[in-house]
């Protein structure tokens, strides 16, 4: 194995780390999160100028030519800053589906807008009944002349409120849970027949419930082959798992380090509480959970970078299991060791914990990924 980074990877990591440390303070983040948009458009443009929004895309598509390792390294730093901008929804998920399955025309139509920061996107793939089964789809796309008509409902569409275009999974054939018959479409979010109900999420992001009612789209909206969209969707979702998992690793690092610092300063019974061995054990355990998650992040990123297949899927699921368990442990202990302060809005600890809790649920929780890991 080789865990060393290339010079470009190191520079990218340092660049994101520097920004998150110097220009992405917690108070500003909170202020941006409380706006109607839910993030800073200025930051988003900065990301575009720094080239970050193009990192996962090929140079031919106008991107940086990076892959899973670069995405993981960036996302880890995003996690440290508790990034609120919709990098995951726009770049990794919606952009990812187009990257993996889109035609050259679709790539040239949609990717430049993502890369230069002028367009936002969202991936509408969750349905209320489906839990984490991405093949469980009741939304239908019926052939109509030389196009399709979409009818159905998508839940918790991340970045739905801001999306300029949507990537949507729908069934063109087969039964509700069949793996065949799933198709992917890309369309303008303002297409007639699309309606939204927007809301903030627990971790301060924005999402929408989206209804599709006789939405007419052209044949050029279809991504890849009709009925064969599931593997493309799955790959984009696994990119997403790696990304949010890496984000969780960054969150955990902040939590354990802040907790260690706090315990060195907070005094009880005339001495810093960090002197109490029982608390030291807990902090060592937090550290270990973070390190184990970070190690699996490298493993998953390497597997994904070496080629997408069963080995990569297995590594990604293992990583998600670990992150789910470790995130809960680290988050709970950080709150407990901070005492009552840990539960307040003004301290960052609870916000990291909320993000970790949501990350566990995104794209399948510990149980789901453990089952997937065992079956692969």
């Amino acid at each position: 194995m080789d865990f060393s980074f290339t010079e470009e990877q190191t520079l990218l990591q340092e660049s994101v780390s520097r920004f998150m440390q110097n220009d992405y303070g917690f108070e500003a983040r909170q202020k941006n999160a409380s706006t109607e948009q839910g993030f800073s458009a200025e930051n988003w443009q900065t990301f575009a100028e720094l080239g970050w929004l193009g990192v996962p895309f090929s140079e031919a598509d106008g991107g940086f030519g990076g892959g899973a390792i670069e995405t993981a390294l960036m996302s880890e730093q995003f996690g440290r800053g508790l990034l609120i901008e919709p990098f995951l929804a726009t770049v990794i998920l919606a952009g990812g589906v187009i990257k993996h399955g889109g035609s050259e025309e679709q790539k040239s139509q949609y990717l430049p807008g993502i890369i230069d920061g002028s367009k936002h996107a969202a991936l509408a793939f969750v349905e209320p009944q489906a839990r984490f089964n991405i093949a469980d789809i009741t939304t239908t796309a019926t052939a109509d002349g030389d196009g399709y008509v979409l009818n159905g409902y998508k839940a918790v569409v991340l970045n739905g409120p801001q999306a300029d275009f949507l990537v949507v999974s729908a069934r063109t054939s087969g039964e509700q849970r069949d793996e065949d018959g799933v198709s992917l479409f890309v369309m303008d979010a303002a297409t007639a027949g699309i309606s939204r109900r927007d809301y903030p999420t627990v971790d301060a992001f924005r999402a929408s419930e989206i209804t599709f009612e006789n939405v007419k789209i052209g044949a050029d909206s279809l991504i890849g082959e009709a009925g064969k969209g599931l593997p493309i969707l799955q790959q984009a979702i696994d990119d997403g798992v790696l990304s949010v998992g890496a984000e969780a690793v960054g969150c955990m690092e902040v939590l354990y380090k802040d907790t260690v610092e706090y315990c060195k300063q907070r005094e009880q019974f005339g001495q810093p509480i960090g002197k109490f061995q029982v608390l030291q054990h807990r902090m060592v355990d937090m550290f270990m959970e973070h390190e184990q998650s970070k190690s699996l992040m490298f493993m998953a990123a390497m597997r994904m970078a070496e080629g997408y297949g069963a080995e990569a899927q297995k590594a990604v699921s293992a990583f998600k299991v670990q992150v789910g368990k470790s995130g809960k442990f680290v988050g709970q202990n950080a709150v407990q060791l901070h005492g009552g302060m840990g539960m307040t809005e003004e301290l960052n600890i609870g916000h990291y914990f909320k993000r970790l809790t949501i990350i566990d649920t995104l794209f399948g929780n510990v149980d789901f990924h453990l089952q997937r890991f065992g079956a692969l």
Partner: protein
Amino acid sequence: MRSEFSESEQAFADQVEGFITEHWLDRADPQRRLRAWLNDDDTQALRRHWYQALVAAGWAVPHWPAQFGGCNWSAAQLHIWFSACIRHQTPSVLTFATAYVGPLLMEFGNSQQQALLPKIARFEASWCLGWAEPGKMLDDFALTTRIRRHQSDPGKMYVTGTKTRVVEGMQALWMLGIGRLDEKEIGVFLLPLDQGGVSRTPKAALATGQPMAEIQMQDAVLPAWGTLSLSTEMLRRRLSGLAESDLTSLADSGALTDQVQRLKAQLQNEDNVEQGLVRDCDALAVEILGLKAMEQRIVQSNGAKSSNDLPPTAVRLRAQSLWSKLSELQIAAFGYYALPFVDGALSDNEGPIDPRRSSGDMDMTMVMRRMLSPNVATELALDPRDVLAQEHDQ
């Protein structure tokens, strides 16, 4: 970044597999090989062949410096070698002598002490650690063993005291131990055990059925050069595997993977198995995968530590806790066959799993946690001793 072996690493791994197959796997059936772990008489020849093959190949102490018999292998090669040995359950290539005593003598010993090295490197001199004492925790302050100089002949020294729970104490020829030189000073001694002042009593261990020993020393004679110049704190660090170059104890993931996969396959063939058990196997497999990546990070950094690196101690601690989890899972998988108690070999317990191992591993995990966790805390600048030292300096 790359998740697999390089071409040269793969070639070396193949060479290692070939060696182990020839000198271990092909020498006896699995049941007999398992018994070799318990030092049964009928497996003595098997073990002897293994150690002779190691010495003949020059692979006995590959982790030592070349001038003392080492192989100049890279960290990756050492990891491949030790991983394969643990996975195939060969007789220990890392004995207490080759893993700890030898490197200590090289670093802290004088020429007379280093003269002991060749026998260690040929597996001819077995050593044990004399640390714990009856009724005492592993606490330096409670130490009662005394190292005493002869009143009229200061060149002569004697050791008096009792050491308990001495692993391999019944067979060892030498003891590396600690004793009190006076009220304040603690010394590290090298004591030949084959002498009149030493008596040993077997003390059964839960973990393997192999007896530990209680060793009584009554004016046992130390050689004139029989004390080693290092502090107990340093000794403790060395025994915890905290030497920067010590990668030897970080090679468990391969064996753990192998065992959990076998256990899962076995469970899947059972007609009446609880699904939770299979799921627990998968959960453990995930953690082992994490351990594997942690081991590789250490190998990559070659044990060097920086503020952003993973302390080797943390990996060791994690490995021990996973062995413990595996044992618990094996017990659960064993069902009613966890009940029989056959005082003998692992493989005689009506099946492949010895239920006593679980409590033994758990016990070891607790000990390791108590020993290693404070060291990781030190890495986090949390050790109270550090805080106190800083206060003292101010």
